[in-house]
């Protein structure tokens, strides 16, 4: 009996000490960690649009964020889109309520300051106040619309998919006709040397320039990448002026309709990311079409 108590006490003390150490570290590191993630997110946003050291960000590039919520009122389920409205940046957000068939239900103004809209707590409570007391409001996802010279230049959508072990977070950029501009991996825990290769340019750049029609039916094939394509994909290894504008266009055209070549030894991760992108694009295009139709029919003065 005495021994049992000793063992139980010993284990308890060890667990509590370990928990305390981890907890204290978490408290001290969570803020800088969030900041790093935010910086990383922003960097990836510009990367995926193709802006880097060689191609600077245009001065009039504007990003508008649209948030999607699921609203449950009694037995009815609705989608709520929080969209920026007005010509100037500082004019505020409106809520568009849409039913599950894509029909317009309601249009309300959100009582929230534009600089607070990125804070999830403030945003959710503003939407709750606008919808009315009895509804449950759950945040689903968001996307960005990039505008250059007052024209839509790209959609940016952060998305997730199930990888080999845990989720793979990635960021997709689509042009206004829903063709893929680029893909960046935000976070993943695939195995180094195998699944982690999804981060490499030779894999993720294969998605660049794929048309919406192609992405809808894209599959992974277990074949090595042709040598000329491999050289073209690894853009960071290019020498100055390695490819001229025409050559880049010609290469993109040549492999426009090819499927995705799997990573050697990591077929599951390759398929997971490819399917994730396929599903994310399909869903996004459906939603954005519904949203655009409503905005056009109801003549809402959205900013994007």
């Amino acid at each position, binding site marked *: 009996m005495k021994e049992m108590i000793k063992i139980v006490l010993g284990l308890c003390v060890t*667990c509590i000490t370990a928990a305390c150490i981890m907890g204290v570290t978490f408290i001290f590191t969570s803020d800088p960690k969030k900041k790093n993630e935010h910086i990383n997110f922003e960097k990836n946003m510009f990367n995926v649009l193709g802006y880097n050291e060689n191609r600077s960000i245009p001065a009039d590039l504007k990003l508008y964020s649209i948030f999607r919520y699921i609203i449950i009122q009694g037995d009815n389920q609705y989608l709520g889109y929080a969209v920026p409205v007005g010509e100037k940046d500082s004019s505020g957000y409106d809520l568009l309520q849409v039913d599950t068939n894509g029909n317009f239900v309601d249009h309300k103004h959100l009582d929230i300051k534009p600089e607070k809209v990125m804070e999830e707590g403030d945003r959710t409570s503003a939407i709750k106040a606008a919808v009315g007391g009895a509804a449950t409001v759950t945040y689903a996802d968001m996307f960005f619309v990039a505008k250059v010279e007052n024209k839509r230049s790209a959609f940016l959508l952060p998305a997730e998919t199930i990888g080999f072990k845990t989720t793979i977070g990635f960021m997709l950029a689509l042009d206004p006709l829903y063709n893929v501009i680029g893909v960046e991996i935000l976070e993943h825990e695939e195995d180094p040397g195998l699944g982690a290769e999804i981060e490499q340019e030779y894999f993720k750049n294969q998605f660049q320039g794929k048309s919406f029609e192609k992405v809808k039916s894209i599959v992974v094939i277990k074949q090595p990448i042709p040598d000329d394509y491999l050289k073209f994909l690894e853009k960071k290894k290019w020498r100055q002026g390695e490819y001229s504008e025409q050559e880049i266009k010609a290469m993109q055209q040549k492999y426009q309709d090819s499927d995705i070549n799997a990573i050697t030894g990591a077929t599951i991760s390759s398929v997971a990311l490819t399917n994730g992108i396929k599903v994310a694009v399909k869903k996004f295009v459906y939603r954005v079409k519904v949203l655009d139709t409503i905005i056009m029919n109801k003549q809402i003065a959205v900013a994007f």
Partner: protein
Amino acid sequence: MAIQQKTNKEIFLNGIFNENPIFRLALSMCPAVAITTNLLNGILMGVSVIFVQICANSTIALLKDYIHPRVRLPIYSLTLATYVTVIDLILSAYFPVAYGALGLFIKLIVVFTFITMRLDVFARKNTVFPTFLDAMGMGLGFLWGMMVIGGVRELLGSGTLLGYDILGFKPMLFFVLPASGFFIIGFMMAIFNYTERIYKEKQSKRRIPA
């Protein structure tokens, strides 16, 4: 004093040759085979292991009198998990660049058999300083094992070393695949056994005339 130093040296070298975790004990084969597709991965994994091994070994050596022998294994796991989590959090918060390179490897360390094995076999029975040396030796043994496997696989599989083109062509694509890790480990084990046999034969020959 001289004897003490010699034993310390032996403890240190033990992990590197006599009881090399990969080639002699054949432990932690999963990471050794899965990760070593290139030299850099091998080095990063090895460095992370050395660090965690030293921390965990020293802690257990310090606290060994307070650990009840019946629940020692859960406590080892807890110690390792705590270190790994703390290092993971600190790296991700304050050293994002290093975390980008090491993050994936650190999370894998919790399940390394030979670290737990060293805690049970060595740290539990020794004081802090020899334990530190043992951890250092074991870690370095693991590191050089990973470097050999990673180097051979990268050179033969993709014709490069640390990303720099060495051969200019890809001799055998097979070496990129996980199965080739076993071939290299088997080959290294054979070399170890062969050298040991030669060494013993030489020693016995020397003894007979004397």
